[in-house]
């Protein structure tokens, strides 16, 4: 059981996908207008991530190496469609709040990145636990960012009034610039206390963060 727990610890703290690896920035910024939206997005991604890691790990010896990326994309896209239909059927409020960002889970770097970096090389159980860890890390990060923005921008937390009446909500926090601002402050604090994030070593163009991107680097080098 030990390596499994290690995967979860790794996903939540050591390699938190949103805050340390800086993957999946689009949903991190776009849907965190409230804590509940961030949580919903995190859970949707978690579900896709666990199942895709499991399926890809089970199929890792069957999928030929040359066509692995298209194969992964088809698997992930099918799972995302399932999640999309389930959300539409059972949590319509969340479905309309997240809108286009649910189908866009397909192009979330975290999922293809974990498929390529972990699930394609490890046994099913461990890969699923890696998905759980990464998914939880993503969910926690999104919920926290959403909570901060909701608290400052609307004076509520998970929809409940928590701020005193004298507090005037700073609306910009739930608008677009607020997303960049909160993320900036979080990374700035992490920099100040010397927690290394991938953002500190930003590499021009592509740094192999995600699978398809890494492939680009390989072929790019091959041709030049």
């Amino acid at each position: 059981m030990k390596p499994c727990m290690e995967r979860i610890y790794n996903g939540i703290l050591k390699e938190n996908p949103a805050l340390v690896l800086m993957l999946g920035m689009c949903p991190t910024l776009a849907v965190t207008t409230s804590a509940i939206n961030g949580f919903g997005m995190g859970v949707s991604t978690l579900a896709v991530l666990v199942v895709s890691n499991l399926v890809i790990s089970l199929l890792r010896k069957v999928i030929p190496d040359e066509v692995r990326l298209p194969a992964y994309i088809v698997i992930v896209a099918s799972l995302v469609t399932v999640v999309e239909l389930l959300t539409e059927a059972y949590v319509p409020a969340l479905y309309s709040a997240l809108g286009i960002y649910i189908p866009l889970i397909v192009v979330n770097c975290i999922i293809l990145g974990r498929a390529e970096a972990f699930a394609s090389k490890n046994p099913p159980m461990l890969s699923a636990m890696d998905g759980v860890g990464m998914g939880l890390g993503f969910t926690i990060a999104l919920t926290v960012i959403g909570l901060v923005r909701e608290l400052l921008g609307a004076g509520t937390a998970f929809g409940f009034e928590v701020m005193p009446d004298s507090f005037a909500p700073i609306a910009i926090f739930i608008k677009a610039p607020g997303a960049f601002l909160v993320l900036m402050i979080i990374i700035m604090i992490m920099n100040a206390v010397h927690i290394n994030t991938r953002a500190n070593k930003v590499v021009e163009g592509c740094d192999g963060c995600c699978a398809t991107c890494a492939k680009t680097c390989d072929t790019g080098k091959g041709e030049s």
Partner: protein
Amino acid sequence: MTSLIMIVISTALINNVVLNQFLGICSFLGVSRQIKTSASLGGAVIFVITISSAVASLLYDFVLVPLHLTYLKTIVFILVIAALVQMVEMFLKKTSRAVYQALGIYLPLITTNCAVLGVALTNVQNGYNLLESVLAGFGTAVGYTVAIVLLAGIRERIDEDVIPAPLRGAPIVLLCAVLMAIAFMGFGGLS
């Protein structure tokens, strides 16, 4: 006619794809160090998004809707976009060496750019026809290019400046993005 112009203005400025919808953030933050490279990437994005939104719109209207397979749109669109980018790359390599060298290395990168899939899905959601989809795609890509070139311009200027230690790296880029996003909110008055 005015509604068509409005689509372009709305997608390019009012609902800017990067600063308002947060699509394509990875390349917006990653490939914005120099104006020259970001302009080339912007060119490639305009090219790919315009073509892909046309193809996605045609596919949706004439294949997925008649066959009642609209729930498969995500899978179909992502595969079509990936294949399309590959084809555009091969086509450019064979026909136009100069264009390929300017845009070529960015083309595969665009497959994972969520803006491409995002535009295709938004067009379908809004029920746009072929012409409207192409214009929306073009407008979105122009908006992306404007944002990334502006950011690159700012980054070239602040490159030499002394920046407080915690702000170095990503935070200062995000700070520029905050200010740009605030400025772009002003376009909201146009709608």
